[in-house]
């Protein structure tokens, strides 16, 4: 599986995700600068976490217009899988590759801690190595992770099985207390219609190494590799 990681000015998890991708796939991802209009032929495009353009104006708004994103949208339309983590998720919504928007956390503060999320479906190339209903411990680190979408949009996500992960209690129950940022229906990650694009606020690449205290995030990358060999 050969991946490309788009690097925006202000991206800061590009190295972290590259390390995990290489550990899992055995291949170094191409690091593609946002000004590139061409992206090498790859099996997966990753938009990393960070603060593209300082999160100024709206998180991800300016990055969504970069040349590399125009190419990413074109590839996504052709069915090339795209994964957006944290700021990458925000960029995907700003680029309209994913529905909804990410607003400021209900706490109005930045939140960096481990949370529990529930795998809502294993029927996707991003989650096939997980069990449906499985709970994962994964860190979040964001200021604007409150997922928001209008009622029709929410119903459509539910009906189409486009909700990938939900914040939950350790026992898997989806409760308001388990919702760190106020996201609608505890939504932590969503797919596009064809489930070839995934955006999520938690950072699976940060718990994919036992030395860092956990490996629950690793299977997400293993899912992709498994599906894309």
């Amino acid at each position, binding site marked *: 599986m050969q991946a490309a990681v788009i690097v925006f*000015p202000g991206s800061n998890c590009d190295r972290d995700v590259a390390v995990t991708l290489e550990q899992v796939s055995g291949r170094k991802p191409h690091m593609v600068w946002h000004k590139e209009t061409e992206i090498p032929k790859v099996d997966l495009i990753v938009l990393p976490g960070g603060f593209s353009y300082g999160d100024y104006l709206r998180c991800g708004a300016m990055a969504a217009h970069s040349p590399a994103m125009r190419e990413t949208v074109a590839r996504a339309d052709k069915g090339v899988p795209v994964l957006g983590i944290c700021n990458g998720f925000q960029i995907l919504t700003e680029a309209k590759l994913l529905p909804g928007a990410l607003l400021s956390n209900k706490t109005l503060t930045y939140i960096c801690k481990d949370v529990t999320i529930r795998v809502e479906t294993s029927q996707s190339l991003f989650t096939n190595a997980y069990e449906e209903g499985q709970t994962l411990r994964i860190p979040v680190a964001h200021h604007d992770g409150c997922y928001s979408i209008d009622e029709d949009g929410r119903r459509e996500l539910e009906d189409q099985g486009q909700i990938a992960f939900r914040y939950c209690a350790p026992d898997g129950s989806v409760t308001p207390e388990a919702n760190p940022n106020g996201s609608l229906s505890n939504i932590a990650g969503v797919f596009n219609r064809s489930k070839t694009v995934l955006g999520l606020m938690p950072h699976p690449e940060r718990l994919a190494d036992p030395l860092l205290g956990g490996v629950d995030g690793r299977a997400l990358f293993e899912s992709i590799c498994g599906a894309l060999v």
Partner: protein
Amino acid sequence: MQQEPAITDQVIADHGLSPDEFGLAVQILGRRPNLLELGIFSVMWSEHCSYKSSKKWLKTLPTEAPHVIQGPGENAGVIDIGDGLAAIFKIESHNHPSFIEPYQGAATGVGGILRDVFTMGARPIANLNALRFGSPDHPKTRHLVAGVVHGIGGYGNCVGVPTVAGEVNFHPAYNGNILVNAMTVGLAQQDKIFYARAAGVGNAVVYLGSKTGRDGIHGATMASAEFDEKSEEKRPTVQVGDPFVEKLLIEACLELMATDAIQSIQDMGAAGLTSSSFEMASKGGCGVELWLDQVPCRETGMTPYEMMLSESQERMLMILQPGREDVARRIFEKWDLDFAIIGKLTDSGRMVLKMHGETVGELPIDPLAQASPEYDRPWTPTPKLPLLAADAVPAVAPVEALKTLMASPDLCSRRWIWEQYDHMVMADTLQRPGGDAAVIRIHGTNRALAMTVDCTPRYVQADPFEGGKQAVAETWRNLTATGARPLAVTNNLNFGNPQRPHVMGQFVEAVQGLGAACRALDYPVISGNVSLYNETSGQAILPTPTIGGVGLLDDLDGHMTLALKATGDSLVLLGETRGHLGQSLYLRELHGREEGAPPPVDLAAERLVGNFVRGQIGDKKLNACHDLSDGGLVVALAEMALAGGLGATLEAPEPLPCPLHAWLFGEDQGRYLVATAAPEALLAAAQAAGVAAIQVGRAGGDTLTLPGGGTISLAELRQVHEAWLPGYMNGH
């Protein structure tokens, strides 16, 4: 061109120059300076840049060791950590700006120290911060805590450097004068370290980064601004940080440093263009000519004076190798960074400032730098306080005392703070905030750096010499508790007005104390920063020599944590317990008294116990380890239990060396509490090594049971420990 004001005594005073200093300036120039030159003298000879009150004493600090590559005198200190790698670190204060505008003050403090470190070729890998606020019930405190924490996170999170450790104290002495000390640790290749020593007549002087505005031009210029038309725009303004530009600067500088284009480089810190250009030229023994009309400006009509004194953030100055302008240009343009060639190096030994070809100022560099004043300020020693007898302190029921301490502002959980800091970005954080020291993997290796910041101001106030020793020893202990080998320190000396002999005395004795500890522990000082005049209306802060320590772990899976892990593990207390309650938190939090001499630090014993503990960790003989500090034995055990989610029973030895409450809560130094599955072996090894050791209980259950039978559930303990800070910040 602004009309030139007369250099009156008032203007000179406004620039903080004494009549003698002004006389010296005239002597050096051979004429009276114009306003621009006066401004330059005033910043170059300011306490901040010249260290005129502290230099004499800083020179007494030990700064050398085989592993020290660069001691004090550069932007940051550099140590050898093996495999051709170097750790580069420094701490710096941003106290006053943070009091004026807590968010921006703290944010720009972080930005400044990051630049000091990546200027030298290091990729920053961790930030730490030491914060001191006024009393929680002071009306300003909540707002200041919120702003400072938000600012540190806002900046560090955005640049993508994890904020991994720190400390926070509350004390009325900081009501009008909070302390914000920020430390950065970076990683570099030993053969790719960059210095500020300019060389190469004719080489281009390049300005990189944000445009120059009227930010933070110090108070003195307000007066001089009046000679200009008094428009709102012309007023100096608070420095605002742009972490986004900082991130671009880090990446662009590191990318350029990987080429051979840079001859020397220097961040524009305090007194921006003036001190950076002076430092570079004087270190390199050359002259410099600056074309100020080439300086990228944010505002119209900026005068040479304003350009030279502006403290606009996120700016760098570098000297390029001849013919390398294009390499540099390509990289700066890739990162969309403003840059300009604003001058050239000369052999004149003078700084010549030109505006549209016309010379607007000219100063000799070395005389000005060398002649910078150095004072031997009168000082008086701090009177020693009597030892406070343990039985002069009433005993409180142990469990009640523990609950009160664990919920007190200085001991309660800091989770509310560190959860606002991204402490995991870069994916090398092996020990997150909450332990004795943060442990950060050296990327791509099986080794790690441990780091911590510490100071116990109430001890320093009571006895600056012992307090100075203690601050150093506590960092050494914290690093040791993770299994790391302590290598070197940086220090941030925060004191009051040095022109008051007893304050100067605190400074002198504290420096002597920390020097003594660094010597005894082979733990040299490689960088630091001094912040004086921390007082409002005559009330000085507690003397606060913050120490930042860095240590090395040669084997990752050797690193130790404080969390209790296994039911049945025996608890062993290492180090001598005498039951010292003077200046303890027990005395302050339960009896409202700040009395007596602080606990003395026996440096020989410190070293002996610490080396023993590190050896045991290395030999995998321990399952948990925590050093004893504020709150003594019981608080240490409570922290270990909470971290592991595993209870314990504490048993007092017969006979007790001191009253029970003193044994439980005394703050004797040089002690560790460890958990082990093989207590006999450990006790035997300790005895062989001449280290005091006794078994004091076992791990297990979900409660903490104290001698005398008092018991508290971990759940309740956790609740009181976690509740205070969020509760306080939410206004109840």
